[in-house]
């Protein structure tokens, strides 16, 4: 699809030839994820997380469909259907539920790594702006799906999380409160809210799957980026996706699923909150309402606005929280440096790692109990988040002098080859080899 040296599909089996002439589905697959998709040969392991995200989406859809067969979407029956029927009586129901619960967390882990990979290597830059924006749409859909899924067991955190998150809408003047009541189907989360959350929680993953197809389609027009950020120039720069990257993705997926299995089987509740094993009680507010870990940085931003300045603090918090994600849509035009990869941008690189630390700090603050010092640290971290994207990044991209880029991907690959090419027993360190070459 992308490069002129991409191998065309040549069906060998007569059935496939027959099929190809009528419905070229095998041709589509061959060009998309088979030998017909040339991929830069220098991808590092951070490029494995897109495929992993696809694997976790599949795990979530499959386990979720079976769970839905045993779940009762009623305020009186939801908690029992999850904690007695599914966890005790359904064959391997405990496995389905724990796989689904931790699958959501791991879906977010791989997605966050995927997003930060994109931030570091400039994957959002031309000609891949739409790939990036479709990815953000997927991320927003994931957040909505995960939130609604967390409400379904109808535990204390489910209920109060729904209360807090739908409460965001009431921050908007005039329309806010009626909008919230309309969305919930009542003044507080109840049967109407639970049923519609269940319906949407079942629907949205398929919408995600559809946007994933667009995301991959848009990606395959310019082809995958690579750690140097240098464009593919000729055939020597690429390898066919299959078998080279299917093999690399395959073994790495098995290794990553091992990590997922260890958590699912041996610490299934580690990433959850104990309060969600208490049935929802509209009359008893939990001491500390916190969302799931993947929302903590945004929760910290929300809670950091504590002063009514022109607008009420809550409205500032809600605007900033939504803004913190929406600003990412503008990233391709905010960061105008022509150099894609952070490896060749010494100033950008430092700020990038500062951003990573900042988001981790926000995450910690968002999940921890509130005290004066944590709020103060959270406020500084939240301010840095906005300054990073909206002020620092545009400035860095205009003033920074990037390092010289390799003239091609295959040349960049060769930098490490001196070591491998050295005769046996005379291997030099990477640094040594470079020094000798210089």
């Amino acid at each position, binding site marked *: 699809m992308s490069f002129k040296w991409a191998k065309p599909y040549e069906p060998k089996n007569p059935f496939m030839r027959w099929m190809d002439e009528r419905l070229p589905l095998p041709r589509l697959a061959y060009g998309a994820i088979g030998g017909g998709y040339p991929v830069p040969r220098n991808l590092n392991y951070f490029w494995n997380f897109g495929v992993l995200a696809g694997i976790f989406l599949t795990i979530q859809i499959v386990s979720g469909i079976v769970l839905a067969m045993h779940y009762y979407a009623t305020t009186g029956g939801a908690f029992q259907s999850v904690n007695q029927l599914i966890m005790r009586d359904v064959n391997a129901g405990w496995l389905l539920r724990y796989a689904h619960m931790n699958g959501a967390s791991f879906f977010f882990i791989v997605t966050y790594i995927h997003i930060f990979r994109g931030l570091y290597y400039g994957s959002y830059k031309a000609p891949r702006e739409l790939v990036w924006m479709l990815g953000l749409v997927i991320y927003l859909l994931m957040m909505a799906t995960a939130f609604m899924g967390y409400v379904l067991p109808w535990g204390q955190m489910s209920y109060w999380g729904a209360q807090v998150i739908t409460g965001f809408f009431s921050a908007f003047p005039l329309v806010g409160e009626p909008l919230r009541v309309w969305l919930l189907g009542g003044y507080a989360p109840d049967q109407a809210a639970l049923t519609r959350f269940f319906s949407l929680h079942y629907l949205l993953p398929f919408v995600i799957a559809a946007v994933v197809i667009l995301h991959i389609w848009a990606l395959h027009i310019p082809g995958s980026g690579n750690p140097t950020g240098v464009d593919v120039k000729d055939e020597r720069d690429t390898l066919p996706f299959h078998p080279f990257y299917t093999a690399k993705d395959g*073994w790495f997926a098995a290794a990553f699923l091992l990590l997922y299995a260890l958590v699912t*089987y041996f610490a299934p509740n580690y990433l959850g909150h104990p309060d969600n094993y208490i049935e929802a009680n509209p009359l008893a507010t939990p001491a500390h309402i916190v969302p799931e870990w993947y929302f903590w940085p945004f929760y910290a931003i929300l809670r950091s606005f504590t*002063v009514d300045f022109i607008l009420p603090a809550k409205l500032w918090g809600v605007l900033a929280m939504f803004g913190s994600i929406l600003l990412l849509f503008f990233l391709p035009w905010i960061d105008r440096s022509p150099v894609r990869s952070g490896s060749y941008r010494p100033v950008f690189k430092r700020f990038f790692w500062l951003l990573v630390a900042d988001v981790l700090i926000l995450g910690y603050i968002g999940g921890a109990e509130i005290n*004066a010092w944590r709020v103060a640290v959270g406020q500084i971290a939240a301010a840095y988040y906005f300054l990073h994207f*909206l002020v620092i990044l545009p400035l860095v991209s205009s003033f920074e002098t990037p390092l010289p880029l390799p003239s091609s991907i295959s040349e960049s690959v060769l930098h490490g*080859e001196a070591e491998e090419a050295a005769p046996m027993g005379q291997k030099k360190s990477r640094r040594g080899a470079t020094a000798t070459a210089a």
Partner: protein
Amino acid sequence: MRFILGFIGAVFAAILLISFFSNLATYFQSPPAPMAAEEFHREVKELRLASDGPFGKFDKRQLQRGFQVYSEVCSACHSLKFAAFHDLKGLGYTDAEIKKIASDWKTQVPSINPDTGEPATRKALPSDNFPPPFANETAARAANNNALPPDLSLMTKAREGGAAYVYSLITGYQNQPAELLKKFPDAKTPEGLHYNPYFANLNIAMPPPLTANGQVTYADGTPATVDQMAKDVAAFLVWTAEPNLESRHAAGLAVGIFLLIASILGYMAYQQLWYEAKRAVRVTGPLDPENQAKSRRAKAKQGVAG
């Protein structure tokens, strides 16, 4: 557009800094008062159970002892509504024993009089969930000084600290320390509550449930010290919250080994495949005159001697 976005960013940052300084000012003008619940709350005691760790299995004798403590002590107030009598098979009871436990259970199951259709009760069957000690929340509160004894089916998953928390709480009752009263004269445990440093706000409505050694006479002859009974009932509650723990651990081990072998084999296949690809780079690579020329040009540009 970059200026508009930069302005928005600056506004958010400015509001955050205003929030930051106004909070700091409040903090120094009126520092938050220390709270008794923060200073005197204790971390849970250490508790080791056979079910701990990735290879943990239940100690069935201990679970049976814990069940005995539950049925003789805890079940007077606490329900176990998500567990059924037939689940007791997991504790090693036979079908006949379970049938007897169900029919002898102190509270009966609501039913209908088959002749009149009036509400009635019947003896529990193995297929029934454990009937709750109180008919409803109002009855439970009325009998317990307006406090509601929580359901115990998921207790060890529903509290930070799990089984260790249950054990610490049951054995943690004590007189309120004099030091606490000296520092926080207003924090005296109210009438009808009991001081317990493992409870979040230090004062719990539940009276000490296990008060004397030998409160339960264990069928297996284990000396029933308060500590032993507390451990046993904590172990039992791990089982009620997670009856599939053993099969989960066993399946986890099998899946882990499978994925480990799969990733090793996959890695070897990947190395094998890419070895050829890397050799191909080397052949078309440094020996390729075009590539060498490019390399020289790049180095010259960087001011590095080739």
